[in-house]
């Protein structure tokens, strides 16, 4: 499958602070790729570097297997951090600027405003919009020129539940059209519902990446207690039953491999000489798994 974005050992410093440290990953055509991480983890910085608005201190990146040129930029629709438009221009005038830069026809402007539900506001100055409307305006500008790739940094920031759902629908419909979408977010639910792949950043470092189903799935987790928890942890880590074992307060949280049930775990522990004093099966939330990963 064609590689849309390839990042190799990317680093970015702000003075003495290393915001991004040797981050590498690839986004293939048609993927909806989430970049997940807590605030300050380097998500926005990574996207700002690969979009050419911040200069990297190390590493490299390529879009469409080529060095990043202004022609490549026009194949990408991007929304980074806050919406950046001329407050004294109307929505239509602001999008006219975007359309001119992207060599897109004027018809795209009305279409994009329609998709973002802002057509009635086309002659309103950008500075007079509410935060949610500004965010929707950003989504409209992203769609100008029918880009192959959408790069969205916190696209639902500042939106009310209705706006949230609208933006999610826009993303979903663009994904259904086969577009590649890269989303930075700290909203796990958003990532799980929309993304096919995810990279998880923590303190500027990539700590995991892969399919969402593999990294962040709503798996069943078995919480157990027994004597000699440390020894039991070691045995379970070596066992074929488990995919992940970790401590949660006084319990040992065990994520079982497919085809194994909690009864198999109980039997295994008993046979190894660790009868269980507690066994509770829970569907672990994404949040728990995310927090576990970034701990």
């Amino acid at each position, binding site marked *: 499958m064609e590689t849309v974005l390839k990042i190799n050992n990317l680093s970015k410093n702000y003075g003495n602070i290393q915001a991004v440290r040797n981050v590498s990953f690839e986004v293939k055509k048609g993927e909806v790729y989430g970049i997940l991480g807590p605030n300050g983890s380097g998500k926005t910085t990574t996207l*700002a570097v690969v*979009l*050419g*608005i*911040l*200069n990297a201190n190390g590493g490299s990146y390529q879009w469409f297997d080529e060095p990043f040129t*202004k*022609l490549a*930029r*026009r194949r990408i629709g*991007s929304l*980074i951090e*806050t919406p*950046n*438009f*001329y*407050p*004294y*221009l109307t929505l239509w*005038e602001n999008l*006219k*600027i*975007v359309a*001119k*830069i*992207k*060599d897109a026809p004027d018809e795209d402007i009305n279409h994009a405003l329609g998709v973002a539900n802002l057509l009635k506001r086309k002659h309103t100055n950008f500075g007079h919009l509410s935060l949610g409307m500004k965010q929707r305006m950003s989504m409209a*500008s992203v769609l100008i020129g029918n880009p192959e790739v959408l790069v969205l940094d916190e696209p639902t920031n500042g939106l009310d539940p209705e706006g949230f759902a609208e933006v999610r629908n826009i993303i979903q419909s663009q994904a259904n059209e086969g577009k590649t979408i890269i989303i930075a977010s700290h909203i796990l639910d958003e990532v799980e519902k929309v993304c096919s792949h995810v990279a998880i950043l923590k303190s500027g470092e990539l700590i995991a990446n892969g399919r969402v189903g593999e990294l962040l799935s709503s798996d069943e987790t078995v919480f157990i207690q027994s004597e000699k928890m440390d020894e039991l942890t070691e045995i379970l880590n070596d066992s074929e039953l488990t995919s992940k074992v970790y401590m949660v307060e006084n319990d040992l949280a065990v994520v079982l491999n497919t085809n194994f049930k909690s009864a198999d775990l109980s039997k295994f522990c008993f046979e190894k000489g660790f009868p269980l004093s507690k066994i509770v099966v829970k569907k672990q939330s994404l949040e728990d798994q995310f927090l576990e990963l970034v701990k």
Partner: protein
Amino acid sequence: MKKLFSLEKIKALSYPAFKTLMIIHFLLFFLVILVVSRAHFSIPGFSIKGLYQFPNIWQFFPWVASWFNLFLAIVIIILVGNEFSFRTFRQNVIDGLSRNDLIKGKLILIFTIAVYTLIMVLLAVFIFGLINTKNISFDIIFENSYLILIYFVQAIGYMTLGLLISIIFRNNALSIIMFILYFFPIEPIIRVMFKAEARNFFPIKIISNLTPTPEFLTMASEKSYTNASGTSSLDFSEIGLLPEKLPVGITVLLAAGYIGFFIALSTLLLNKRNL
């Protein structure tokens, strides 16, 4: 180029402050030349009318207009500073412009404003010159007309300096303050530290010397404009009333060098720094 021009047109012409400042610039220039035209010398043998006649008008009008070139530089500082404060330079790059395109766009804007102000002065020169000059001949009309092109270079010089300062400071208020402070007292103080021969080579000195203060006594002398050749019959520099200056050609070349330097440094800074 056409695309960058149309982008700058949308950005500037829809900006109320830009329109207001350009109207004020226009009104101030015409107000000054109208007010001065009404003034009277009480010195026998001298008349203000001499300043409004060909060929003296080619020196007087660009000199008056040059006062307001600082105003144009501030317009550029505001327009470029806005791009940083609204973070629209950043958005333009995200949307598909290169950083060099950002500079090219602003240079097109500077060139356009300089052409506009050149046309404004040119129109004023012809209107007032034709009304006030007797015994008009083709030679008299166009003698010294090259001075308007030097004024054009000066306008570009001030505006490119404004561009550089706004790219360095990225903040409208700070950039305007630094721009004015550089005129006075920063550069004059630095100049004093150098030998007299070197003082004429500083950027503001060079650019402001492009439209030197007219030789009012010579130009207003009734003898000078009645002279058939149109040249001054009095030479005040000979009697030490006028300061020594660099030759015009060298001043223009040095100014062009400084303009090139301002543009190169602006491009370098915009490419090296984060947006």
